[in-house]
């Protein structure tokens, strides 16, 4: 199995240097609701890991735990070897200061289902906001870089448009460019095409495919089985807060082993 997601086996003690994300025994509760019950997962450098599953299965929550938008109840999440959200000394966990959490997030790009572009800023201003305000970049080079990124997502001519003047697909491509402007080592996509008109989905997926080809490490929560088959290096099927099955998407989609996976694919394919 070429897949590098090891949901049911504990990862080796000395992790190879190219593990970008390592998730070990993660649990998450919302009040009494046990959203994630013991997730293990590894994503290697340059890999595209696709997460699928019915709504409420915990896949978006897991994604949001990786950049600490949600805190975890148990387990460990490491990105490039660094523990997310906590500091561990002598086996005791300390909450990280907000400024250190912010520093960790700088290297993790995130794309949201509802785009979440800053409504009072143009496409270009959205993209330069974090490089200028967080990384302290000068405005002129930041703008030049933003223009390049807009060109890359096919929206060079929309730089001065406000989000409300752009279609959903255009907004989502600006949102991808905004995340890329921070030069992230990892990109998280939270159902990036679920809020789009069907005919606009393709543009966004094309941008994501290009990004995957360029070697970006990506974790994608999606309902686009076609994208998983074409671009995914691994496919992980989640249900009820656990990983039911994972492996090579081309094999898993055609020949799922678990009954739950079979019934899911029989409904969505």
């Amino acid at each position, binding site marked *: 199995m070429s897949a590098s997601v090891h949901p049911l086996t504990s990862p080796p003690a000395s992790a190879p240097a190219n593990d970008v994300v390592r998730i070990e025994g993660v649990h998450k509760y919302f009040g009494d609701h046990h959203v994630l019950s013991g997730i293990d997962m590894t994503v290697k450098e340059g890999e595209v890991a696709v997460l699928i599953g019915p709504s409420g299965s915990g896949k978006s929550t897991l994604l949001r735990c990786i950049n600490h938008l949600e805190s975890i109840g148990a387990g460990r999440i490491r990105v490039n070897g660094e523990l997310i959200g906590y500091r561990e000394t002598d086996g005791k966990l300390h909450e990280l200061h907000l400024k250190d959490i912010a520093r960790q*997030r700088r290297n993790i790009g995130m794309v949201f289902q*509802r785009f979440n572009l*800053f*409504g*009072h800023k143009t496409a270009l201003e959205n993209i330069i*906001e*974090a490089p200028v305000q967080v990384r302290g970049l000068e405005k002129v080079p930041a703008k030049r870089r933003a223009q390049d990124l807009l060109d890359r997502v096919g929206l060079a001519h929309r730089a001065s448009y406000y989000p*409300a003047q*752009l279609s959903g697909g255009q907004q989502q491509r600006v*949102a991808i460019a905004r995340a890329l402007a921070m030069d992230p080592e990892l990109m998280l996509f939270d159902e990036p095409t679920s809020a789009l008109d069907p005919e606009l989905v393709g543009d966004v997926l094309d941008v994501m495919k290009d990004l995957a080809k360029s070697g970006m490490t990506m974790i994608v929560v999606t309902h686009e089985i076609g994208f998983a088959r074409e671009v995914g290096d691994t496919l992980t099927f989640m249900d009820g807060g656990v990983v039911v099955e994972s492996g090579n998407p081309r094999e898993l989609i055609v020949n799922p082993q678990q009954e739950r996976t079979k019934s899911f694919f029989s409904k969505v394919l």
Partner: protein
Amino acid sequence: MSLATNEQATTQSSPSPELIKAVPVRHPGRWVGAVIIVLAAAVGIQSLATNPNFHWDTFGLYVLDENVIRGVGWTLLLTVLSMAIAVTLAILLAFMRQSENPIFRWSSWFWVWFFRGTPVYTQLIFWGLVAVLYPRITIGVPFGPELLSLTTQDLLNAFWAAVLGLALNESAYLAEIFRAGLKSVDKGQIEAAEALGMRGSKIMWRIVLPQAMRIIVPPTGNETIGMLKTTSLVLAVPFTLDLTFVTNTLANRSYLPIPLLIVAAFWYLVVTSILMVGQHFIEKHYGKGVDISTRITVNPAALQTAGVSVNPTPAPAQNASTNSEEDVR
């Protein structure tokens, strides 16, 4: 592609449709209403012009009187200063109200409860009497040596007592307006900023507050105009140089209260009109990115609260066609 093909097909198959020329619905009620209003206005104007008890000559005598103009100046100064202090306090109170620290949340709540719950007139009298309550204000170590001692009268004269009284009372109302504004901004905006590595105060000042301002500005403009007229209560302190006090004094001296009431009303209207123009430009500034749009991405309910009409008309034809071409490609 299907979109573009459809458009071409329709234009080709029906090049010049016969336009509907329907007889419009008549509205006789509107004409009756208009006639009544015009007649009432005419009666009003006639009485204003012919009734000698209005004493327009006295109005003309005092409207540009030096004391009156100076009164307008003091009233403006009271309004601007107390609003500036109130806005600053209100932002602080609204931030505190959203804080994770319960002490901040409770003290902000208490402040609003107290200053909103007592009449501004009472508060103004109180600030005028602080000097009686505390004749000297002393800075030093409690139970220890004094470092600085001033008489309260020097520190807090009638003008500053009036400003303080107006500002503290107003801050409680504005804090609620700011709180509602901050809450109206979609949580996704904060998450997006957090995911980019931005932090608390920067997210507040650069992302949340500018978008909240669209909701905050209209009611704050309302409060500013209200404040302009609340300044007429500063005689409670007592502060005696504002427009209302000056015109009242002149009225008492000349035994002609009505023309001097009109003088005061005239100047309050002039200043209100100027403030309304200012508000228009501020609203325009903070409406950027939203008011120009045809597709609304922010919470439409919040827009309606702000009195911004959500325009459901589609984008201009040219704009729409370029969009669809671009997306379909």
